[in-house]
């Protein structure tokens, strides 16, 4: 798994390198470059920050400062099951922040981060348009309404069990072959 992630990251960096040359070496291109990376790869790898700094010949920390200022840039790859916790007005009133906290605690990551196995990532969003179901969390493509702290663990467990089941099925199929 780790090796897989490493080769994936190397590919991403190579891709970024080849796209950098389409930008002129001007400081004003910093944000467009960061947006290009975010758009193509859904996150900005740490190494990419260095690449951009070298390309534009500005300090690494300057790129970091700009990138961390804007919410549109993420520094962790999205997980296989991205979890979006709604903190819009209705969900906020129904204690969406407690739901967020529960996910953070159970997965041992903070909002905006991804678990080391890249299975889950947590993100906060502002209103997903079903306020009657508040508080709401979206896991992958599925909307979970009326969330409660007690539901958080069950939800994660269900996903993990399903995953194990799939893997076992895969094993039996390949075993039969």
């Amino acid at each position: 798994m780790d090796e897989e992630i490493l080769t994936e990251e190397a590919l991403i960096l190579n891709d970024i390198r080849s796209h950098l040359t389409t930008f002129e070496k001007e400081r004003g291109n910093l944000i467009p470059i960061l947006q290009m990376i975010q758009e193509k790869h859904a996150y900005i790898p740490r190494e990419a920050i260095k690449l951009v700094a070298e390309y534009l010949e500005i300090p690494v920390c300057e790129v970091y400062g700009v990138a961390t200022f804007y919410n549109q840039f993420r520094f962790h790859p999205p997980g296989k099951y991205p979890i979006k916790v709604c903190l819009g007005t209705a969900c906020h009133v129904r204690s969406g922040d407690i739901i967020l906290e529960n996910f953070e605690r159970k997965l041992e990551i903070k909002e905006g981060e991804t678990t080391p196995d890249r299975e889950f990532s947590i993100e906060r969003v502002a209103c997903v348009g079903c306020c009657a179901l508040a508080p709401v969390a979206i896991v992958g493509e599925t909307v979970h309404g009326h969330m409660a702290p007690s539901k958080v663990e069950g939800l994660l467990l269900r996903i993990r069990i399903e995953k194990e089941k799939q893997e076992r099925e895969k094993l039996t199929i390949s075993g039969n072959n």
Partner: protein
Amino acid sequence: MVRLFIDNKEIEAEAGTPLLQVCLSNDIYVPNLCYLEGTKPQASCRLCFVEIEGEDRPVTSCTVEVRDNMVVKTDTEAVRRLQRTALRFLLSTHHVKCKECPANKKCELQRLAKFLKVGLRPKNLDRHLKETETDKSHPVFNYYPNRCILCGRCIHACKREHGKALLTFAKRGIDTVISFYGEEDMSRLPGEKCIACVEVCPVKAITLK
């Protein structure tokens, strides 16, 4: 040379000098934190307010250049109120543990609190502290987010010394911190022994390891 009046005192100064600079070099103390001689004024600490005749509200003296016949008051009630409020906000995000702090008794915040008669633990304001007490990621410096008042003097001092800043503001809003991100590699540092950022910090939020 221009002639102006500050607190009824007649003062001569070089045209184009920031008003704050003129006040300070004539022994008229105007509270200030972010001003750094020789760099572009930031006016980010919101402390160096003065009243100038003809202006309808107090202005930050670091961003005003002296003019002929300017009449300036540094000690009006409106000015002091603004300064006290600004200081209270700064203190509300500051970890007031003076006894354990190396800046104790040399701290600009303590000096200002005394000057403006503001308690170090302002009432009526929530205390917002950051989770990280010490950022040890740099090989030479330690950074203390809860001491830092985000005046930016370290950044501008660094830029003044090296032409580019090797530290930066990172994140934003209440989460803003100073970061050395990516500049930890000693071999890349121009002038290895430069400690300009440590020297200009008014609250010892950056210290040597």
